[in-house]
């Protein structure tokens, strides 16, 4: 199935179908995740035209939209890399469709990003790769703090440890995961370190206070 | 005179030679084992493009002593949940068995503790196999999973390879017609041929089996470092560990001696009956003297003064030994010691060569897996050893029933039967390969202990 090697293509050959110029600053879309600190003033040196997220409308996204309609919240392109923002409720269906019909047979990575100020705090990011088409696609799944997204282990077995790592680092619990427990940190660890509100010094100081009786180890 | 004292004196008068030899074995073998380790490390270093121990003494010559001191003063740790008595006993058994079995070995025509024991070879085999009790008990007493798996492996390995080794030895015993160690060597002298040429297959089976019996690579599964940490020795430390270690190396000397006695002509020099090669008898003294000369040559190249002095010391020791070898040639009344000294030299040289093969194999080959080890033992070596016994028997029958020169006929018959045996071996191996090939659909071997 995946034996055929693709002829060399340009990196991330997910070319947009439309001829929109990538560097159009006006192309802000409403659903673009706004970084919390994006409001910082630009530095004095002349900035190169910022390549930002532009809406994507190609064959692939159209197919996804046809299939899932409103569950595809958005389809964007950032630095020539495509991603879909999808609804967590339909995650498993979309994953199965991606694997079986769009031939995204490899879940290259599955991780999360914490945006504490957003309503749906976490972005789960699944990076898919298709061996037959030699293309990548990112799925972004916004989930709220107490939401329990469905586990992808049955779709891509490789998601097992990756979901455990997300749980470990962000505290996102997946429903239907065969053994969701901490993987990199010890079982008794407090908190989830990659959340933005987790202070690196927090745990350290707590330990120092408890074991050495001083206020801070720094 | 009081009767007890008299008895003791009487005892000493009869047994003084044996007693001396025994004391020498107990005192010297640990040292020799230590230097075998050094030899192994040096050889390994040479084959692996490095230098090996170089720090303690010139070229690391004092390394074994430093190691011994370190091991002696190390803390003796006994695991809390272990069986103290047996934990204490096991290494002692291992070491004792190896040393005791040396008692029957003839290191030369006159160097033997149990001289008139007419089951010498069986004594060596039987007593040295007791060493395995030490391994098994030690593994069990440590109360650790790694240890117990190592012990189980060693037991299974012992049972399989003792059989193959024993059958291989039978081919040598058939040819010599005696179980006595000196009798075997004399048989090789009177038959004018080393038994390795009459039973080559038997020799190689014994070689493989003896590597397995001494737990050395590629059969070092009971102590496979990368799998079982140190196998049955995992929980041992300090001097107890050293006892195991010495036992292992003493065992190497034992199996080397058995192979030398049975197949390599024991203490006989090459071509013992060829008159015009008698000048070979001078070789031992010459070789030892040459080592001394080389030490002198190296002494000049040592970086530190004390090392130069040490090298001179080594050279002087060599010259002293060479002198001991040379003097009897010139002093008439001492001539009687020449066969004994030369015999010891040749014997030890052969044992060293045998052990060298052990080490060479160890650095070259990867380790067998347990089921593969069992397959090799049961499916190839044991059938082959049985065939070999038959082949040797047939050759002897042919030789006995012809009127020509006995030795020549025996040799010719051996060639024929050996070829037949090798054909059997090829058949066995290919059959086994086919068998495993078909079994490997699941790629899983059978129950490994069942073999």
């Amino acid at each position: 199935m995946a034996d055929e090697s693709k002829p060399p293509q340009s990196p991330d050959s997910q070319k947009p179908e439309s001829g929109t110029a990538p560097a159009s600053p006006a192309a802000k879309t409403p659903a673009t995740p706004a970084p919390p600190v994006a409001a910082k003033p630009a530095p004095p040196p002349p900035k190169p035209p910022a390549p930002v997220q532009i809406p994507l409308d190609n064959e692939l996204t159209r197919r996804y939209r046809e299939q899932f309609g409103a569950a595809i919240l958005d389809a964007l392109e950032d630095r020539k890399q495509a991603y879909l923002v999808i609804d967590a409720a339909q995650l498993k269906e979309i994953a199965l469709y991606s694997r079986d019909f769009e031939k995204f047979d490899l879940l290259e990575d599955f991780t999360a990003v914490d945006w504490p100020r957003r309503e749906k705090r976490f972005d789960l990011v699944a990076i898919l790769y298709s061996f037959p088409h030699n293309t990548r696609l990112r799925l972004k799944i916004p989930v709220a703090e107490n939401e329990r997204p469905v586990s992808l282990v049955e779709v891509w077995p490789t998601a097992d440890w990756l979901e455990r790592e997300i749980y470990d680092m962000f505290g996102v619990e997946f429903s239907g995961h065969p053994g969701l427990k901490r993987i990199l940190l010890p079982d008794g660890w407090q908190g989830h370190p990659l959340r933005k509100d987790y202070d690196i010094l927090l745990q350290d100081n707590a330990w120092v206070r408890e074991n050495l009786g001083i206020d801070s180890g720094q | 005179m009081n009767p007890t004292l008299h008895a003791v004196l009487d005892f000493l008068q009869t047994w003084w030679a044996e007693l001396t030899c025994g004391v020498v074995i107990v005192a010297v073998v640990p040292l020799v084992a230590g230097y075998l380790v050094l030899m192994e490390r040096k050889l390994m270093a040479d084959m692996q493009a490095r230098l090996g121990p170089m720090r303690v003494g010139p070229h690391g010559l004092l390394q074994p002593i430093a190691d011994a001191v370190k091991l002696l003063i190390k803390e003796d740790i006994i695991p809390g949940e272990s069986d103290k008595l047996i934990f204490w006993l096991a290494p002692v058994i291992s070491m004792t068995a190896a040393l005791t079995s040396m008692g029957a070995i003839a290191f030369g025509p006159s160097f033997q503790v149990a001289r008139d024991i007419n089951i010498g070879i069986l004594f060596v085999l039987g007593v040295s196999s007791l060493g395995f009790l030490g391994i098994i008990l030690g593994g069990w007493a440590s109360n650790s999973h790694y240890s117990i798996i190592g012990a189980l492996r060693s037991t299974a390995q012992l049972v399989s390879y003792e059989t193959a080794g024993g059958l291989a030895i039978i081919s040598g015993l058939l040819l010599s017609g005696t179980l006595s160690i000196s009798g075997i060597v004399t048989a090789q002298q009177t038959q004018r041929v080393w038994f390795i040429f009459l039973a080559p297959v038997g020799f190689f089976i014994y070689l493989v089996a003896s590597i397995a019996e001494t737990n050395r690579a590629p059969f070092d599964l009971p102590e496979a470092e990368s799998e079982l940490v140190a196998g049955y020795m995992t929980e041992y430390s300090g001097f107890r560990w050293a006892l195991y270690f010495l036992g292992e190396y003493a065992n190497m000397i034992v199996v080397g001696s058995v192979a030398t006695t049975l197949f390599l002509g024991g203490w006989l020099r090459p071509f013992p009956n060829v008159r015009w090669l008698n000048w070979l008898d001078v070789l031992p003294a010459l070789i030892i003297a040459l080592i001394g000369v080389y030490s002198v040559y190296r002494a000049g190249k040592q970086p530190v003064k004390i090392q130069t002095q040490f090298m001179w010391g080594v050279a002087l020791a060599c010259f002293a030994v060479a002198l001991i070898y040379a003097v009897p040639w010139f002093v008439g009344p001492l001539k009687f010691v020449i066969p004994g000294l030369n015999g010891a030299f040749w014997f030890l040289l052969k044992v060293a060569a045998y052990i060298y093969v052990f080490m060479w194999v160890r650095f070259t080959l990867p380790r067998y897996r347990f089921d593969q080890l069992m397959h090799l033992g049961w499916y190839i070596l044991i059938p082959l050893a049985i065939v070999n016994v038959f082949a040797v028997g047939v050759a002897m029958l042919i030789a006995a029933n012809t009127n020509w020169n006995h030795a020549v006929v025996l040799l010719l018959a051996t060639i024929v039967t050996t070829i037949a045996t090798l054909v059997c071996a090829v058949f066995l191996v290919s059959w086994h390969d086919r068998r495993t090939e078909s079994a490997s659909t699941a790629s899983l071997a059978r129950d490994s202990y069942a073999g």
Partner: protein
Amino acid sequence: MGNALQDDALQNNSTLLGTDELVLNMGPQHPSTHGVLRVKLKLDGERVRGTECVIGYLHRGVEKIAENRTYQQVAPYVDRMDYVAAVSNGLGYCEAVEKLLNVEAPPRARVIRVILTELQRIASHLVWLGTHALDIGALTPLFYCMREREEILKIFEKYCGARLTTHAFRIGGLQYESYDGFEKDVERFCLDFERRIQEYVDLLTGNSIWIGRTRNVGVLNAADCIALGASGPILRAAGVKWDLRKAQPYAAYDQYKFEIPVGTNGDTYDRYMVRIEEMRQSRLICLQAIEKIPEGAIMGKVGKVIKPPAGEVYHSIEAPKGILGYYIVSDASTQPYRVRIRPPSFINLQALDKMVRGHLVADVVAIIGTLDIVLGEVDR
């Protein structure tokens, strides 16, 4: 007096003389878990019925650290993940940030990057080969491998002063110009190396014990590899002719001719053959690359302060151990908002359970070796 025997002992023969299932704890201190991996093995006799990996003993929170450092400061940290192939880690990170900035390294820098990365691939495979052979009980190849790796490390040292965690590349290009005699050193190493590979091959490839220990051990077919995300030589040994250097060329790989070695069975022996052949191919790439290193600048147009526009990028390269991916989110500040590293070892290690089930303890060691994991990368 038969009824005097207690009933349960008679009825339940299996408990009377039964053998237990044994749980063997392998690691975190064990000679062949390649660091601080801990594997709990459920054994039936010596046969493995199940495994559980306990990892994280070497966790340093690289991803969290990265969020609190500037883009340049992160670069040395990533070297410490796969410390056996630090150059490859650095390449992945630098290229990812370059993509985020929308700049490209100049051609000269890219070619030198290729040379160093391929040398690093050889070095990494050499470490793998030596330790893998040692696990299986062959003592000698390790020292031969270390001898050749030393030559490579010497080249690194001459180039950037460091041997292990080199931090050889900078965002936008290179910090250092290649030293005088760089090409000559690389060429001498490469010309000599073919003969050296032959030494390993002589010791191992045809050896029946080696074949017996590696054939049909830890088989992972193509479908399983893809499902479990196993990449790199593991994937290629299963017969998938796929290599990111060809599929989505980065740096300057599109300029060089090389083959992608593939296996057929996906067993340990095939992985061994694939890696050996990969070393040969890397050598060929190096030889091609030193033939003509383009002249010109070594640093692209990157300011002293790196401040990528808001957005995100994913970039992956073919590290010696598999797909090494960096997913970087920028919030237009000087520090990355999120750096996610896709470590090949971590994901390859997941396949261990599937590979060892039903094998013997000795095979576990061989399979851990063939996975070529570096715990620094697994735990990050």
